[in-house]
């Protein structure tokens, strides 16, 4: 009896010792060296794996950060400047500083302002619908309402508004990871800097058609009339291919362009008090009228002056 116990103990112990030795040797042999910094950096990254930085996830991004000499063009949009500052502290490298960005939708074509012209019954995927044709409205540049951007968002920062049929970005949740921008086959989403208090002014349209055609297909389409250019004192607005664009870097959020837009295609967001368009327009009209009158008066005065001058001259001649 004792023999059996003894033999068992001896056999099992020796098997254990041999296995442990082999494993120890193997670990020495197959040891993979990993820079401990990678783990450290990975720790401070948000862990969202959204691929907004361009790497497939946070771990690969950490590897990239540790392994590259120059990381000034790498940036984690989700963590923002805070996280990048921590990374810089760990790695002792210089990092870029960027203003936080949020996604905005460059289309206001709700069912009300953009009537349907046909019926689409294919798969509910924007990419497929966009591949098949211009869409079920007259505008071949606008939102198709399939919600591919919403599906692409990993932060729950978007939802489809059932009333308008358009996606909505929840600014507080949006991290500016770019996922929706790449998901949209019509390139209708754009990352714009958050600026102060997340105030935004932008042209909510992508229609490149000539004014009349664009307006026919959608009531709030940008018709490329260039009135906003004249209203802007900072040269922040450009019009190309019948479409206006506001450069966020130059825009001072003065909102002078908003009331002059005849189709209301310039959007203001998060301002505590929206521009009173009616009032502004009435004021502008009055101003224009006053200006015209002033011009008229000036002209008349000039005419009178000329007449007087002529009379004087004639009189002089006579003399």
């Amino acid at each position, binding site marked *: 009896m004792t023999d059996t116990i003894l033999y068992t103990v001896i056999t099992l112990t020796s098997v254990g010792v041999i296995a442990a030795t082999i494993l120890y040797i193997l670990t020495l042999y197959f040891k993979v060296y990993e820079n401990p910094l990678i783990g450290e950096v990975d720790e401070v990254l948000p862990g969202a794996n959204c691929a907004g930085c361009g790497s497939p996830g946070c771990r690969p991004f950490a590897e990239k950060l540790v392994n590259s000499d120059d990381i000034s063009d790498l940036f984690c949009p989700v963590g923002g400047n805070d996280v990048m500052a921590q990374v810089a502290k760990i790695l002792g490298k210089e990092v870029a500083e960027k203003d936080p960005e949020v996604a905005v939708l460059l289309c206001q074509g709700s069912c009300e302002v953009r009537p349907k*012209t046909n019926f689409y019954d294919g798969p509910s995927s924007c990419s497929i619908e966009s591949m098949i044709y211009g869409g079920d409205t007259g505008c071949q540049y606008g939102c198709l309402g399939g919600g591919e951007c919403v599906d692409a968002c990993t932060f729950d920062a978007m939802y489809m508004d059932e009333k308008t049929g358009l996606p909505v970005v929840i600014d507080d949740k949006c991290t500016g990871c770019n996922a929706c921008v790449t998901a949209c086959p019509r390139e209708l989403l754009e990352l714009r800097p958050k600026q102060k208090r997340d105030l935004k002014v932008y042209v909510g349209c992508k229609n490149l058609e000539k004014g009349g055609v664009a307006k026919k297909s959608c009531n709030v389409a940008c018709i490329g009339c260039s009135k906003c250019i004249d209203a802007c004192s900072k040269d922040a607005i450009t019009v190309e291919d019948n479409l206006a664009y506001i450069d966020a870097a130059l825009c001072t959020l003065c909102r002078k362009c908003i009331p002059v837009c005849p189709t209301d295609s310039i959007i203001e967001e998060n301002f505590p008090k929206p521009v009173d368009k009616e009032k502004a327009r009435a004021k502008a009209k009055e101003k224009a009228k006053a200006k015209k009158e002033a011009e008229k008066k000036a002209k008349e005065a000039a005419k009178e002056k000329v007449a007087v001058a002529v009379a004087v001259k004639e009189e002089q001649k006579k003399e």
Partner: protein
Amino acid sequence: MLRTFPKGGIHPADNKISADRPIEELPLPKVVSIPISQHIGAPAEIVVEKKQKVKVGDIIATAKGYVSSNIHATVSGVVTKIDTVLDSSGYKNPAVTIRVKDDEWIDTVDQGDEIIREFELTQEEIVRKIMEAGIVGLGGAAFPSHVKLAPPKDKKADILIVNGVECEPYLTADHRLMIEKPEHILVGIDILKKALGVEKVGIGVEANTPDAVKIFQQLTKGRKDIEVYPLKVKYPQGGEKQLIKAVTGEEVPAGGLPIDVGAIVHNVGTVYAVYEAIQKNKPLVERIVTVTGKNLENPSNFRVRIGTPVSDIIEAAGGLPEDAGKIINGGPMMGKALSDVTVPITKGTSGILIIPEAEGRRGEVKSCIRCSRCVSVCPMGLEPYLLMTLIEKKFDDRAKDEDIFDCIECGSCNYICPSHRPLLDYIRLGKKVLK
């Protein structure tokens, strides 16, 4: 036993309602819009100006590059607009709009009816003339024909296959052409034979058009170089690769071209256009279009000037029926629904099909039940259910490994799927994403 291709295929109801309607000339439209990209390859370059007067046959846009095609004025009149126009692609694309006035042709065109059999052009001259006439494949894909006639130097064509298989249900344009102009087509075949330097010609015709089979058999009696192949009815036999397999028994390798097995395929419509271009100096300004549909008053086959609005030819066929659900450009299998009736007929339009509301809707999409019917009907031996899932879940590279580019987009999988899954839609998307 009749020949056919062995792998897959389906048997949709053929509904050839307009088969006994002779080809009629469609009255001239008031305005035509001629898109400059009606073919595969680079869009042509517009060479006319606004307010310029043109005659039928004048070049209005020249081919830009080798794989491209000339575009001719299909009516006489005044160019009123050079702008984007909604075309069958579903998007607005550049087009030349001409207001029709009279019907004046350029002088070189022989408008007579009599058949001319003799020709004395050399190989190069034939190919050049075909190129100048702006001829593209009229079966539907609209691939520039001169490219097909000049195979790479290291490859030699030994058989010309004439595609008289109109496997799409409803369409009868090729069928009517075969029984009304068989002799012209045979002259066209001789021209193409010389252009390609081949000795053998096979005419593939499906057995559901026995009159066409009979006519060609009678006319080619005693000719050793041309053989008529009556084929067992099966969709998609009109596909280039399927037809080659059915006629010669050889399989075009994956990713290869028909020339790899020594075959060149041309549609009967193209062959007829070649006859007209060479013997009558007539560029491609018109084509035969079937207008059909179950509730259409007057399903017909029309000879239509390219650029004519679809609404005109529907009107000529008795107007849009009240229960119309979809207007399809092409056949029911590979055609594409139009979003507007103002779109112009292009070189690739083989038919306009009006589907009643009740039949036109897609079924409700349900989960895949793994019945593998799509696999068994795929004529290319692919696995559509797998390709769809891979593309849907964005495994693009794996889809490439699964030979997504071999798909000929025949739509057999969509047709057979009991769960109404949009298999082909996703495969097309995958092909576009991967390109």
